């Protein structure tokens, strides 16, 4: 019965997810990166702010797993700390998108009419600018730094979540249980909180993982052009930038932060794909 599709419980969804290969692989990769980032809060093999010139440009070895950079800093330690920065920036940026975008989108869906039109046209306006380019403009105006990078990336997550949650909410509003809630005299806000958001949460979760990986890419991009995380804190993007001039004789300086970005984004995308399959039974059955 296709009518029973939408009533899957969260436990059921989790069971589906756990039997899904890309979800599992994505979860393992993302989990490992997050663990590494958390670990860097307490311990790294070497201090990343200390310059030891004698150790400069060492190749990967048992002593320095990923080698060292031109200031003698341990690249493995820097990748660990960089993970922390990337995740923090992406997390907060997605958080801004969700916390502002979802209420805006569900509000537009609940109100319709002028509010809806105005919000969505404004969304279109924000969407019309290439996100990364505008982030560059914002950080260029307000000055480089992690906080401004977060704000810049966050602003471009708002319309993504607003549009998505509006569309999903619009498909829930005409349902009869919403009618029943309105007959029970509940306000639009209350209906949105009690009925709409729990029923669009699955779609939002998938989008969160995707935006999260895009956030990590954006942070790396901003740091690469020097507008993201500032020295002495290491960041994957700036490590790539610094490695650029030394590619011919110290390729490890570029390879490891590059790999870190690729693996993290891959892991998050796999996680998102797996979640989407687990949450959308039609896709699952056709596979």
């Amino acid at each position, binding site marked *: 019965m296709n009518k029973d599709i939408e*009533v899957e419980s969260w436990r059921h969804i989790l069971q589906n997810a756990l039997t899904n290969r890309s979800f599992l692989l994505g979860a393992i990769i993302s989990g490992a990166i997050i663990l590494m980032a958390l670990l860097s809060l307490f311990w790294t093999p070497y201090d990343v702010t200390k310059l030891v010139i004698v150790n400069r440009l060492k190749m990967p070895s048992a002593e320095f797993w990923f080698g060292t950079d031109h200031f003698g800093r341990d690249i493995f330690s820097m990748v660990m700390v960089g993970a922390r920065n990337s995740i923090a920036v992406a997390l907060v940026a997605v958080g801004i998108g969700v916390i502002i975008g979802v209420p805006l989108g569900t509000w537009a869906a609940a109100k319709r009419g002028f509010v809806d039109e105005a919000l969505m046209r404004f969304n279109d306006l924000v969407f019309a600018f290439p996100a990364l380019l505008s982030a560059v403009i914002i950080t260029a105006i307000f000055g480089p730094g992690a906080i401004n990078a977060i704000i810049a990336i966050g602003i471009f997550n708002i319309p993504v979540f607003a549009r998505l949650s509006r569309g999903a909410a619009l498909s829930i509003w005409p349902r009869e*249980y919403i009618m029943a809630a309105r*007959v*029970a005299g509940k306000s639009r806000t209350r209906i949105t909180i009690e009925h709409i958001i729990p029923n669009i949460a699955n779609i939002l979760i998938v989008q969160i993982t995707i935006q999260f990986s895009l956030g990590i890419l954006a942070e790396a991009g901003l740091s690469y052009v020097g507008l993201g995380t500032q020295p002495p804190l290491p960041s994957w993007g700036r490590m790539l930038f610094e490695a650029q001039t030394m590619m011919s004789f110290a390729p490890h300086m570029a390879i490891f932060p590059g790999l870190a970005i690729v693996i993290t984004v891959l892991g998050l995308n796999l996680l998102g794909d797996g979640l989407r399959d687990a949450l959308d039974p039609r896709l699952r059955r056709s596979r």
Partner: protein
Amino acid sequence: MALLQIKDLSLTIGDDVILKGIDLTLEPGEIRGIVGESGSGKSMTAFSIMQLLPNGSDTSGSVMFDGKELTQASEKQMCGLRGDDLAMIFQEPMTALNPLKTIGDQVAEGIRLHGNVNARQAREQAAEILEHVGLLAAEFPLNRYPDQLSGGQRQRVLIAIACAMRPKLLIADEPTTALDVTVQAKILKLLKSLVDEYQMGLLLISHDLGVVAEVADSITILKQGKVVEQGPTLDVLRQQKHAYTRQLAEASSHQPVRLTKPVLSADAGDTTPLLEVRDLIVTYPRTRKHLFDRPDPLEAIDDLSFKIYPGQTTALIGESGCGKSTLARTILGLQQPASGEIFFSGDKIIPGTPQAMQQARQDMQIVFQDPYGSFNPRHKVARLVGEPLHLRPELGKEQRMDMVEQALRSVGLGSGDLDKFAHEFSGGQRQRIAIARALVTQPKLIIADEPVSALDVSIRAQILDLLSNLRDAYSIAYLFISHDLSVVRAFCDEVMIMQSGKILEQGPVDQVFDSPEYDFTRELLDAAPRLDKYI
């Protein structure tokens, strides 16, 4: 030799046994009705013949069609048969047509595939067959798109597609269930005439004994994948040898007992009406044709007035699109009227203050048609049923729980069900939960929007009994929206016949049904299939 001979057909899908040894024969020119409740295997029998079964199904037994064994046929052989000698039409004419192709193309497609003709000939044949099923070329040229047609017209297009190659066997799976009664009568007549003309066999799958009694020569009654009884329609329905046949027939013409006296408006005197609607007009904006277009609004409800007295059950009958549901939404305050007034127990609620509406809402609840869509899938029964208690914030948590439990008990469910999700219940039980939700604030008026039309007949009878008992016990008034005239006759005190946003006539049920004033009412009454004519 029989056109179709099914012998000992069994089907399992995964671990579920769907069909258990079905035997069935069909002669050319015969209409055989297959009747059963949901889950009886009616549709799966059809899909077994077409070999369109879902993955993981396992069949045994034999399906002989026109001298060919279909269970052994390859997919390629089946593709040659489907749409040529074997054709099928479905319940939902709205989704069975491709919205991006013209009706002419869709009919011609099958003719080209099987007919060995060129595109021009195929279009000529398509035009012929469309004319034959009643879509005259002058009115319905081939380049019409499905969205420009009504439900009945789309079903005619589907019949044209199915019959274009003059199939030997046509399977119709609930072909008229989604249609209005007057349209249903016309479609059934068309099918019957096509069967006579082409001498094809027709398997008419239906849940409605009345429909089958009207057109079928023979009948097969299925229950849980088994044939309960079969034979010539009238013999089976009149003799009712099997207990299940009797049960189905009784449930189909079930009359709930009304213990209290019917409430008639004529006897009301100066009692304050519970609900009074005065000169109500509701409009919808039409879509703009261009930027500066100011189209006249569409009048969904056009100057409508009526009264419902306390404890009265008033039926609202009309065809789809006549404004029945819009009226319900307007009374509940979910839709703003363009003009007019609505009074509840003498208080003006529309137009009125939000407080007045909120007050009236405690006494006014709704039960919907679809027992699947009317619950938030993520909430448990306790929360679902308790939702309207939001209107009474003065109640404590325990009082709320008491009221929820009481409402559940009065619909025949227990406190053990409080902690379950809606999807753990059957369709009939869900409708009970929906009624419990409507009852929990102890309302004086329940608007029931087709509350039994999505249910199997035996469950329909139970729910009607329940609604009737509740009416006796709590003297609830109902606004009972329905297209099913037999249910209305059995259940309601008064009836309003609605056509294009207006009330055509109203009065006590017997009066309107026995001596209708308008042709439209008479047509509606004549078109409704009546089982009692045949038993």
